[in-house]
């Protein structure tokens, strides 16, 4: 017992495999040329990554709590549709954003409530809300794109602060907020605890179910903000535009070394996962490889990273 506790700390534990593999993808993309390293493409990368980063941040917390959110893409589409309809109806940007946040929050609370209070499996719950959100978006728009939003929102999207595009700043701010939440607040500690040992949290006198709902609610709110970027990018809203985006978000989280079990996760890993997926898709675009093959390549990437991470976990010597 008095031997020095040479324990692995949070900081010193091994990096997930995404670090070398992500680097490999980036270097490969640069070397492959086709204008990948051009200034214009770099700016483009930032814009492409921003919405994915926003979805992947709360998704990390949800997966760490042994949950899943399949509805993220559909809820984002619905938020975007609601925002666009408000703008098209002559309301201001603030009112439109508030409506979008409201829709996102409502879905987040519904997801969290069903998972936490009724104990339903997150996969099934969010599959259900995915259908509801997608259906609602189609009903509201009758399946058509919503346009005629006025210049405000696209101007916002094209704005820069200190030479950095505003969408990139909003996405980075989401990262910063999520980082502070996860590592510097009670909420964050309880995310680890809900995934790792929910009973311990209850026995510590904490209302675990409320915090569990809050995790999903945060996801809904971030979708509400992300709708700003999605709508601004096209200066229109389409009811199914963001469907499938949850796939990339979940992929980024998993690539980043977050586990579906026991509350094992790290936010920086997800950021690297987002970067890797974005670079990969962008480079394959530049090489003229079609979108369906891009999905295949992301799938292969996930399996490779997971296999390496899981093999390293198995081989690691057992604790003292």
């Amino acid at each position: 017992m008095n031997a020095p506790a040479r324990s692995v700390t949070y900081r010193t534990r091994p990096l997930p495999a995404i670090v070398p593999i992500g680097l490999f993808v980036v270097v490969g993309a640069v070397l492959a040329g086709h204008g990948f390293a051009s200034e214009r493409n770099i700016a483009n990368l930032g814009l492409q990554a921003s919405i994915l980063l926003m979805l992947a941040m709360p998704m990390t917390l949800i997966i760490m709590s042994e949950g899943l959110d399949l509805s993220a893409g559909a809820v984002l589409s619905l938020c975007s549709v609601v925002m666009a309809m408000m703008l098209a109806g002559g309301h201001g940007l603030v009112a439109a954003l508030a409506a979008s946040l409201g829709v996102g929050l409502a879905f987040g609370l519904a997801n969290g409530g069903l998972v936490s209070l009724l104990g339903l499996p997150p996969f099934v719950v969010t599959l259900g809300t995915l259908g509801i959100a997608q259906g609602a978006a189609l009903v509201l728009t009758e399946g058509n794109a919503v346009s005629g939003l006025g210049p405000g929102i696209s101007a916002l999207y094209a704005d820069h602060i200190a030479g950095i595009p505003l969408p990139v700043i909003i996405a980075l701010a989401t990262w910063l907020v999520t980082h502070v939440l996860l590592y510097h607040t009670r909420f964050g500690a309880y995310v680890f605890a809900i995934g790792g040992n929910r009973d311990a949290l209850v026995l510590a006198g904490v209302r675990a179910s409320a915090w569990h709902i809050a995790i999903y609610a945060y996801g809904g709110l971030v979708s509400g903000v992300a709708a700003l970027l999605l709508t601004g990018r096209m200066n229109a809203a389409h009811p199914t535009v963001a469907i499938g985006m949850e796939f990339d978000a979940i992929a980024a989280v998993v690539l980043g070394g977050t586990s579906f079990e026991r509350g094992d996760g790290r936010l920086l890993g997800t950021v690297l996962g987002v970067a890797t997926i974005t670079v990969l898709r962008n480079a394959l675009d530049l090489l003229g490889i079609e979108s369906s093959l891009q999905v295949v390549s992301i799938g292969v990437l996930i399996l490779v990273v997971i296999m390496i991470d899981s093999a390293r976990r198995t081989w690691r010597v057992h604790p003292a």
Partner: protein
Amino acid sequence: MPLLALRSVSKSFPGVRALEDVSLDLHGGEVHMLLGENGAGKSSLIKVLYGAYRADAGTILHEGHLVDIKRPADARRMGIAVIFQEFSLVPFLDLAHNIFLGREPRHRVTRLIDHARMHREARAALDSLGLDYDTRALPVHLGIARQQMVEIAKALSQNARILVMDEPTAALSDREADALFAVIRRLRADGVAILYISHRMKEVLELGDRVTVLRDGRRVATMLRGEASANELIAMMVGRAAGAAGAVYQRRHFGEPGATALEVRGLCTASGVNGVDLVVRAGEIVGLSGLVGAGRTEVARAVFGADPITAGEVKLFGAPVHGGPDRVASRGVALIPENRKQEGLALKRSTQDNLLAASLWKQFPRGWYRARPARRHARALIERLRVTPGEPRRLASVLSGGNQQKVVIGKWLVAGCRLFMFDEPTRGIDIGAKGEIFALIEDLVKRGAAVLLISSELSEIVHVCDRAYVMRTGRIVGELARHDLSEENLLRLAMHET
């Protein structure tokens, strides 16, 4: 005045009286030992104290005032802290976070967690136990003993006035246990009230100022230090009546044992088995007794090939074994696990499907399932095992616990097994069915099978077995022949430190 007093507390669950009219005083500056066999109500008592259960009847007085402990948060506010036996650590949160879970110190203005202060105070909590673990370490990288010490540090850091410890030394080495005892003596001197549950007689006698014995949910006696000897305490735990009236089954027939079926020499495993020798012969029922966590299940799992063996040898029917459960099972060995619902049965399938699951190739060697012979075969088995209701199509999930167990036994019976290892075969089964299960087991050995019976019910071992081994902390500490088998002898071996 006691810091905390329970007055006539009762708690029932459907079919079970967990606590009945239990009164208990916890005084400041006193270590109060709680003794009792498995199922005596110790855990329920803790849960009532901590607000995990609410008592059906009775009152709790905190410093003389009537209180209602509805949830753990209420208990915490009254200065009650519990060191749980099941670990309550979060695997991927660092030790400082774990120690302060639910009461993280926060910055006055920003309300963010004050990491510097939290790590400083966690350091102090660990230092007070003489632990040099890094406060940034993750529990997932610590072994069981270290996790237990962190658990203790966590409870101590709450500055509890009333501290409950549920077998805190079960996972500790002697040195760690000594460090803990030093802390307990210090806390006692500081006026803390300690409720301490232990199965180790040495701790009870050395540390306890007062001892309460529970049996079947009732308080048998409360005594001051020195008022009862170890043997008297054991007699109180067992109960005088248990010898005759408590028997659920009386073995009818004892035969001469035949050839050796299982021979274990110097068995060690990573799961804690430490040099076990034992022999089971055809035609005998051999008990494996001991307290929960003594390593009994681990022995059975290692024999079955489910856990790797680090040293020693296992011989089945005279020949050494290699390989996993499939290889062992193919030699005619059955392990009937404790949690039969998860490991022994397909709950959503019929009685018939479950009965035939392990012998399909034997019944239908050409791989072609035929419904009519299967049904006939199932009916014959149901009759032999006396499964009720005797309908082959009935889902296994709707059978009673006793009948489910019969189906599990029957499954291995038709597979032609000759060595049966039962792990707590009567857990959760009503008394009538227990007798039928033992009748089945006796029938097995009469037909020449060998049986290893793991049971925490001392009376089962006494009344069913030809002889029994007793385990403590991964070792066999004694073997009792038929004429020495008594509950007192079993408990004495299981609890006494050597």
